[in-house]
């Protein structure tokens, strides 16, 4: 073999790390296929939530520590409880030893023998059959690969179509291993929906969802198509600054890098907010001059409201008569030439038109001295429906336009990896219900027809205990949430719900959530029956969980604690400090701002001169038309529209919203 250099010998593999504990089993604390106990040194990195690996020592007493165990059987577990005790027979002996003086108790020259005994729940056994009690072997701290195997992530981390979405970092004993969710089980079709619970005020729920949305946008499997998110901002400025960078420290950036998620704010965010009652200033906290230009007004007219009239009616209102009359209005009156039977012909396209019709009917009945019935509908029913519809245009003034065109989300033109924020934080609860019901129904409708523009939509709703309460009234919104929870995964309509008290959310909504996330929990909440499966130690940890740490339960694994970086977006509270909301502008200035947004060449005085002495409602209607048509010369268009009475825009052909499928009584 002269002249043929032999390859240098490979360095020997590093010795396997020594075990950190050893499984013990007694008659009172036996090892089972699902649970085992082990002890560690007093100084150990093991804690509640730690993932460990047990190797079967085989017939020999001492394992080889080769990472597989002598028999090849490996068991993975997660620590659920911990105990420490000494050889002290009774507390009285400590008192005697210290002669009753607590100060002397610490002065004893020898520290008593102590034990750190841990209880772990089995996550996985390899091989999985036959399922046997955990062997009394050495316990090792899990490595990255162990974590993947223990949590069964290996099935979706690799392969031709990986579906892994990072949710956070499992940290224990100096190890930091990414934990992934399976997109098929988070976003459908296998399972879907995410529910997150936690006490208010720590920003954990919102932060976790923001980070998870970033992770999904980055790691959503290409073969699953396009995805977008619709977030309802129901309180404060929580979601008002998703496009602005937040403050991250080096640790956060390192975590982002470890999880493979870019540490930058969302690139495509569209904000929608209704107007305030003046119809000119937006009802949102994102009104700083530098940002308000991105906010689209959310304005709906009669047609949009009438389709969801059921939302406006409480249980007592919904009777067959009112329902029939609303159907009559929707089918026979709205957007049609309609003769009232008293010699008048109406074309009802707005609330104002509808009110004219009602007045004409009441006057006609009174003058004619006829009976109390009009077109088979009793006048009391007509009055009730009129009151309810008038009520919505009053309570939700700004969202619901009495007249003029509507402005809505870009149905059919949703963009991939875009977030649509609908700010209803300052809207009347009735209006919130209406917004929520209509947007989710439209999403469902478009996803069924596959013409939304994306293949899947995540809908983030905070305060779920308000919208889908366990013991509240059976509202239209709750029915709809149940429908999403039970059937949304087939459509790609995924609910990300958050609430403070999970026990107060309808059990079919939380029960259908494939992925459950817990932030810091209230102790009272943890005492409710839904948390009985958690060990006392896990409950205690949940009650004291720091910001940035969560417990995640996913169909592939039992609960595990993970840490996630702060979201890379500006937090709501910081946002309102950096971008303080602008004071409401006078009507003229608000009109100027909206026109300047369309054409920066427009000068304020031109607009003010144009709208001087005009009725505000005329200006609002004209402005809405300009905003919707996007003319080349907005000012000229406004001038033209204000020159005569602005005719209402002909409504689009009505697309019937399919009724909700009757909801099954099956719980899941």
């Amino acid at each position: 073999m002269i002249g043929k250099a032999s390859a240098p010998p490979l360095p020997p593999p590093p010795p396997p790390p020594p075990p950190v504990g050893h499984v013990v089993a007694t008659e009172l604390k036996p090892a089972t296929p699902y649970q085992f106990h082990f002890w560690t040194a007093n100084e150990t990195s093991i804690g509640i939530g730690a993932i460990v690996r047990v190797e079967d020592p085989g017939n020999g007493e001492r394992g080889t520590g080769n990472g597989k165990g002598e028999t090849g059987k490996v068991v993975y577990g997660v620590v659920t409880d911990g105990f420490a005790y000494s050889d002290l027979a009774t507390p009285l002996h400590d008192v005697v030893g210290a002669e009753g003086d607590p100060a002397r108790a610490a002065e004893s020259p020898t520290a008593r023998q102590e034990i750190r005994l841990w209880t772990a729940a089995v996550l996985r056994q390899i091989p999985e059959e036959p399922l046997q009690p955990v062997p009394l072997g050495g316990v090792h701290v899990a490595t990255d690969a162990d974590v993947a195997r223990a949590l069964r992530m290996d099935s979706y981390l690799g392969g031709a179509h990986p579906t892994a979405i990072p949710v956070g970092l499992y940290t224990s004993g100096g190890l930091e291993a990414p934990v992934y969710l399976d997109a098929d089980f988070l976003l459908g079709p296998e399972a879907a929906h995410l529910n997150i619970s936690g006490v208010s005020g720590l920003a954990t729920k919102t932060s976790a969802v923001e980070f998870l949305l970033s992770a999904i946008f980055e790691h959503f499997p290409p073969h699953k198509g396009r995805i977008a998110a619709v977030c309802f901002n129901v309180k404060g400025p929580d979601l008002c600054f998703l496009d602005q960078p937040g403050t991250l420290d080096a640790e956060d950036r390192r975590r982002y890098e470890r999880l493979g998620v870019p540490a930058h704010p969302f690139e495509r965010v569209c904000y929608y907010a209704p107007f305030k009652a003046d119809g000119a200033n937006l009802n949102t906290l994102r009104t700083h001059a530098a940002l308000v230009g991105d906010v689209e007004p959310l304005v709906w007219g009669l047609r949009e409201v009438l389709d969801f009239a059921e939302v406006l009616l409480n249980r007592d209102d919904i009777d067959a008569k009112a329902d029939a009359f609303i159907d009559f209005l929707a089918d026979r009156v709205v957007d049609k030439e309609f003769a009232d039977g008293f010699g008048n012909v109406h074309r009802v396209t707005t609330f104002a038109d509808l009110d004219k019709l009602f007045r004409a009917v009441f006057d006609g009945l009174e003058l004619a001295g006829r009976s109390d019935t009009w077109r088979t509908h009793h006048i009391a029913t007509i009055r009730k429906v009129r009151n309810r519809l008038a009520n919505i245009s009053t309570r939700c003034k700004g969202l619901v336009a009495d007249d003029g065109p509507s402005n809505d989300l870009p149905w059919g033109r949703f963009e991939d990896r875009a977030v649509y924020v609908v700010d209803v934080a300052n809207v009347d609860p009735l209006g919130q219900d209406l917004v929520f019901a209509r947007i989710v129904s439209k999403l469902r409708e478009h996803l069924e027809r596959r013409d939304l523009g994306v293949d899947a939509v995540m809908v983030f709703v905070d305060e779920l205990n308000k919208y889908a309460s366990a013991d509240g009234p059976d509202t239209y919104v709750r029915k709809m949430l149940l429908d999403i929870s039970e059937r949304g995964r087939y459509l790609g309509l995924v609910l990300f719900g958050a609430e403070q008290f999970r026990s107060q959310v309808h059990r079919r909504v939380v029960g259908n959530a494939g992925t459950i996330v817990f932030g810091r929990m209230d102790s009272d909440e943890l005492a409710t029956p839904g948390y009985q499966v958690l060990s006392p130690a896990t409950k205690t940890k949940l009650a004291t969980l720091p910001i940035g740490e969560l417990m995640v339960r996913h169909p592939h694994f039992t609960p595990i604690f993970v840490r996630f970086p702060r979201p890379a977006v500006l937090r709501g509270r910081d946002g309102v400090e950096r971008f303080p909301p602008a004071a409401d502008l006078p009507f003229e200035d608000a009109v100027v701002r909206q026109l300047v947004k369309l054409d920066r060449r427009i000068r304020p005085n031109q607009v003010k001169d144009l709208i001087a002495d005009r009725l505000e409602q005329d200006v609002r209607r004209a402005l809405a038309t300009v905003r919707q048509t996007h003319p080349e010369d907005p000012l000229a268009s406004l001038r033209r529209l204000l020159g005569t009475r602005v005719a209402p825009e002909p409504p689009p052909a009505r697309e019937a919203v399919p009724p909700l499928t009757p909801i099954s009584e099956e719980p899941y």
Partner: protein
Amino acid sequence: MAAPRSWKDAMVAAGAVAVSHVPEASLGRADIDEVAGAEPVEDSGVAVHAVEQGAPAPLTIRFLDGIQLWKVVYYDGVLPIVRAHVAAAVRSRGADRRLRTADEAGRDCVVACVAALRPAVRAALEASGLELVDLPQDEVSQPGRALEAARRAVERARVALEKQLGERCAERLGTDEWLVVDGVLSESSVLAGHPRALAVIKSHAAQYFAGPELERALTVAPGHRTSVFRPRGRARHEVYSWYQRLWPWEGNDVLFGLLRVEARAHEDTVRAASRIGGWLDRERAPLATPDARWDRLLYPIHDVETYLKARAPRDLLSAPGSRLPKTGT
């Protein structure tokens, strides 16, 4: 003057001390009933001295103890064959107050009178590879005597192991480290002559005083010690000694909480006795419960014993099962 309520009150009134329990260990060994005798070293007789309360203990102390476990595993005819395990360990206590094993040794053996065994049994035993400890034939004529002989053989093995380990430890002892032995120093010249070796003796079978001096020695108050004396009698190597009380004996037994301490026979020992007594006094805590001898058993010694038992062969530790005849086949 009111009459005493009962004879018990009368006894106490007369100066007797009421007690309620006599520990088994206080009965002592039945084979030693003579007074060994003692030579005063510190004082002319037995005086009582207070120990130095709060005297600092050495930073590092090593504690030595041993165990012996044995059980009859076979009978060859009426000859018992005993399986035995002896072990000893040194556990070291440092600044963190935790005990860690510094050295240990163990022996497993079979004790029997080999010459009296039937050839086949003897051959099987010799082929087993186990260490055999032979008993003299004249000691095994009766099963009871044979068992006593086996017990003594196991005890000798344990004492030898402790001595071996103690001497090894003493040779390696650092200049500021001490060795505390459960038992006596006088069995080993190395230990008996070491300046930082102590022995704590819990059993008081051998007595060194009589009369008023004995009373003074055995009723010494807690936190006090007797004068240093030189024990006479069976001691192989000369040591100094003193009695020291850890816990009040009133209400218990006169030997309750009473230790005898052995140290090098040197004038430095006399000078240091109260100081050593001071840091030994602090060893009362933590209590060595649940051991019944907790009043005299230092917790670190108890710890060594626990450690050794934890590592001993399981079959020698297991609780005896039912001795009812087995049913079926």
